[in-house]
């Protein structure tokens, strides 16, 4: 996929992930992770896992929390980059790298998709 096409895509949050804004303004995301079958069997046998889905938490920093708030299912990556550039007064290229890397990181964790 060309870079220009990727910038026109819309990031979508995983509806299963629970995000809450903490008192300090930072976003805390709780999400379930799939347990590998072999690990599940071993963990069950030694009493480390009761078979319920495992939950992980991810606390975003100041910038991550701001960008997470921009994922409304309507804005494209390009629009998010423009808002990021304006908010933090950084170079556009720097904003593109920051936002796309953040989207990639969330995508790897299954917290975000692109349509």
């Amino acid at each position, binding site marked *: 996929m060309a*870079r220009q096409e990727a910038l026109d895509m819309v990031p979508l949050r995983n509806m299963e992930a629970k995000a809450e804004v903490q008192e300090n303004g930072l976003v805390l995301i709780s999400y379930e992770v799939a347990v590998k079958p072999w690990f599940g069997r071993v963990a069950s046998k030694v009493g480390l896992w009761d078979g319920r889905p495992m939950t992980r938490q991810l606390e975003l*920093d*100041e*910038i991550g929390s701001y960008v997470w708030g921009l994922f409304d299912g309507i804005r494209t990556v390009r629009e998010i980059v423009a808002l990021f550039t304006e908010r933090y*007064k950084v170079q556009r290229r*720097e*904003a593109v*790298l*920051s936002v796309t890397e953040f989207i990639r990181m969330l995508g790897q964790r299954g917290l975000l998709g692109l349509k």
Partner: protein
Amino acid sequence: MRLEQDGIPVAEIKWRRVGGAFSAYKHMRKLDRKFRSVDIHEGSPSQEWDTAADSLRQSGFNVTLLQWGAAVGAMMHNPATGLALLAQFFEPGRQAAAILASFRDHWNGESLPWRMFGIQARLPSGFLLDTFSFRPGHYTLRFRRPRRMPAVEATPQDFRRGAGADLILERYAPADAILKNTDFHNWVLERYRKVIVGQVSSKSNMIEWADVQKRFLRSSMRHQGRIWLDQPANSFFSVVVEGEPVFQEEDFKRVCDEYGAV
């Protein structure tokens, strides 16, 4: 320095100052031996390239135009300053010839201007770019002035070896996000604790230090630095000098004054 468009390399520029004579023919043969599969030969694809080369010659360069496949290159050398430069354009066009014509050698002056990715600086002309990094949020440019100019074939290790002075420019952004849970003073002391040497003086948005360390049977080492917050640019800028005390106080002040956001 390689320039890309839509992820595809379009141009590459290599440069270095060399001492003594420079033979373009010798280097062309070297390239020819290195890339045996392509036929590298002297030549110009069109009148535009000849005009660009003439423009460079008028500015003091000796120019040799090269061709291989569809690509065009130029080998340039300024005997007055020793600057040798190889420019390669992988998809040459009218724009590429104009870019070539715009090359200039600033080494003749006392200072050298730099401008890239939204930052600009003017440094004393003896400093050569050693390493650079442009990561989102943190830019670093490391320049070095070796006591002796390295040879053409010198490796980066040779360049860093021996006496000389290092000049490091950094930029951190966005400052308001960095200072969300700390203050300027604490952030600087934490980030630069290994760099700061000697007496520290601080103002509201600036921290400076300077020290000269005497060394037994060796030349003394100068450490000097300044970090400041540029609120309109929402960035921190820092200038750090380490090494031989060839860098005068007024040079340091001038570098700091000229360094900042474009």
